[in-house]
């Protein structure tokens, strides 16, 4: 085996690309869960975002418009989830699972005419000065704009949750909706906004797969990334920066296993293929074993002002 053929600079650069969809989706779900809502429909919103973004990208020739539309579609789908769970008080777990099934079916319906078509893709954005730094420039600063956007979004979510009044209110709603309600905050409205944000992020995540990473449309192309995103939220103990770590770790192991195969590592390929999932589960178990890991107290609980 020739490990020297694995170039760490390129490895890190490609793990950032491979992790971006999970990062975006997990970040959206973090905000949703911080408001006390569990939306298991991430996969469905992602794949719908993937096809909507792809369709608009192909028809207008503009990937940026594609991304914007994918966020809109993801948000629309999550709106259905929001109305069902927040106004009609349906069970969040069942509704979320249903949303995934709807999204998968809807996307393959919309996607039929788009199979086998090439789409416009985002160009790499070289940042002046930063991209010229040796090693680090190539590693961190020679990506497409969505990679920078996803990292910036992590910082923004972190700052808003930690320092702003809006973040405080969101967390209050997620910890105790009754107390927040008693203080006069509109619990349902705040949660709806969080759900819409989560949907938009999932839509962007899907479009990143269909417009940048592949770039092509195929049925079921998100291939379970939405579920990984859900696991990453728990993995991260509901902390934005840890989402970044979790997503990059998962993306890193995924990319690394392909690189190890290409380098001819003497490890059974079946083991390499399952390694990203194994490592995610292992870390989840370790974190859970530590006890209190910061789940919002009202997560998944139904709120109604009369109760």
């Amino acid at each position, binding site marked *: 085996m020739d490990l020297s053929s694995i170039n760490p600079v390129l490895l890190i650069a*490609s793990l950032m690309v*491979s992790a971006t969809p999970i990062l975006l989706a997990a970040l959206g779900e973090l905000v949703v869960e911080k408001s006390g809502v569990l939306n298991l429909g991430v996969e469905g919103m992602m794949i719908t975002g993937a096809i909507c973004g792809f369709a608009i990208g192909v028809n207008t020739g503009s990937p940026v418009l594609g991304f914007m539309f994918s966020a809109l579609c993801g948000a629309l789908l999550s709106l259905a989830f929001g109305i069902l769970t927040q106004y009609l008080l349906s069970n969040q777990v069942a509704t979320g699972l249903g949303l995934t099934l709807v999204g998968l079916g809807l996307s393959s319906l919309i996607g039929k005419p788009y199979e086998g078509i090439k789409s416009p893709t985002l160009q790499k954005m070289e940042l002046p000065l930063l991209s010229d730094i040796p090693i680090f420039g190539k590693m961190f600063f020679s990506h497409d704009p969505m990679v920078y956007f996803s990292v910036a979004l992590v910082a923004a979510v972190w700052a808003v949750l930690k320092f702003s009044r809006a973040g405080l209110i969101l967390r209050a709603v997620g910890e105790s909706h009754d107390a927040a309600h008693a203080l006069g905050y509109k619990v349902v409205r705040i949660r709806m906004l969080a759900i819409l944000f989560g949907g938009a992020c999932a839509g962007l995540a899907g479009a990143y797969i269909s417009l940048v990473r592949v770039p092509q449309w195929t049925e079921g192309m998100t291939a379970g990334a939405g579920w990984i995103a859900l696991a990453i939220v728990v993995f991260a103990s509901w902390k934005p920066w840890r989402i970044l770590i979790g997503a990059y770790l998962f993306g890193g192991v995924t*990319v690394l296993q392909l*690189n190890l195969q290409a380098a001819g590592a003497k490890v059974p390929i079946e083991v390499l293929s399952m390694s990203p999932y194994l490592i995610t589960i292992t870390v989840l178990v370790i974190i859970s074993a530590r006890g209190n890991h910061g789940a919002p107290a009202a997560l998944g609980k139904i709120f109604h002002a009369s109760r």
Partner: protein
Amino acid sequence: MKRRTLLASAAAVALAFSGTAMAEDKTKVGFVFVGPVGDGGWTYEHNKGRLAVEAEFGDKVETVFQESVPEGADAERVMAQMALSGADLIFTTSFGYMDPTINVAKKFPDVKFEHATGYKQADNVSVYSARFYEGRAVQGHIAGKMTKTNKVGYIASFPIPEVIRGINSAYIHAKRVNPDVEFSIVWAYTWFDPAKEADAAQALIEQGADVILQHTDSTAPQAAAEAAGNVVTFGQASDMAEFGPFPRVSSIIDDWAPYYIARTQAVMDGTWESTSTWDGIGAGMVAIGEISDAVPADVKDEALALVAALRDGSYHAFTGPINKQDGSAWLAEGETADDGTLAGMSFYVEGITGDIPN
């Protein structure tokens, strides 16, 4: 219970009718596809064959197809459904449908089945495949000549004889023109998963491969190579001309139309028999897509000469001396491989590193 009797009687009725269906005007032909018809590769070409059958026979034939059918229990259900709805002839177009095809064929003795790339035959199951390895020989030759890093990446799907034959054939012919060439093989364990194929291509490119051969069906590796800028690829199963003239410099094209038309005709005439067909460049089942101008003229001429020799049978893609990976002798000087060994090929030839996963 009621529903079960209903199903059983429906099955009985369908069975009774499928025997007489030949006497009717319309012959119904079913196709089971492993990917979407728009994959731009393997399934796309099978679907072109289906459309050719429709064009050839017009009103006398009705075709039905089901795409993205998983290889497993689902496939059996799809085939049984087709047989129940009156299909006279069913083409199952992926290696993984082998056992399901045999199982379903047992239940419907009057329906004819045709399984692609497999080796299990029955009274009403024919097998057919193309000698893709002849095309791989041409690819290997061009790859060996064109690689500057001497590293060729190979995205393999499943460790089955068809795929292993392709790797061996490509390697032998690359090595012949470039003794320093090395193959990096990544097993994707899928026929069609664009995200995974793209990642695999990316990993190979990052490790210095400047030629990518693929035995998976989507165009995602082509897109990855195009983005990298200096990587050569070949169209797989279909021409993939939209990525030419570079990175795609040539391709293997599967042409199933003549076979599908001939077999449908045989069913119509009542002359259908269980056969085993394995045709290559000579019979036209395998075609080499146009070699683009990105290939140097002398390499292109050599490649075309190789194609011509394979076509007229003066050269066999597996001609000795060839040793197996462990160094033991396989083919002596001038000896050519027999079809039995090729059909069940489960070893690498000498020089390829790594193990074939089980």
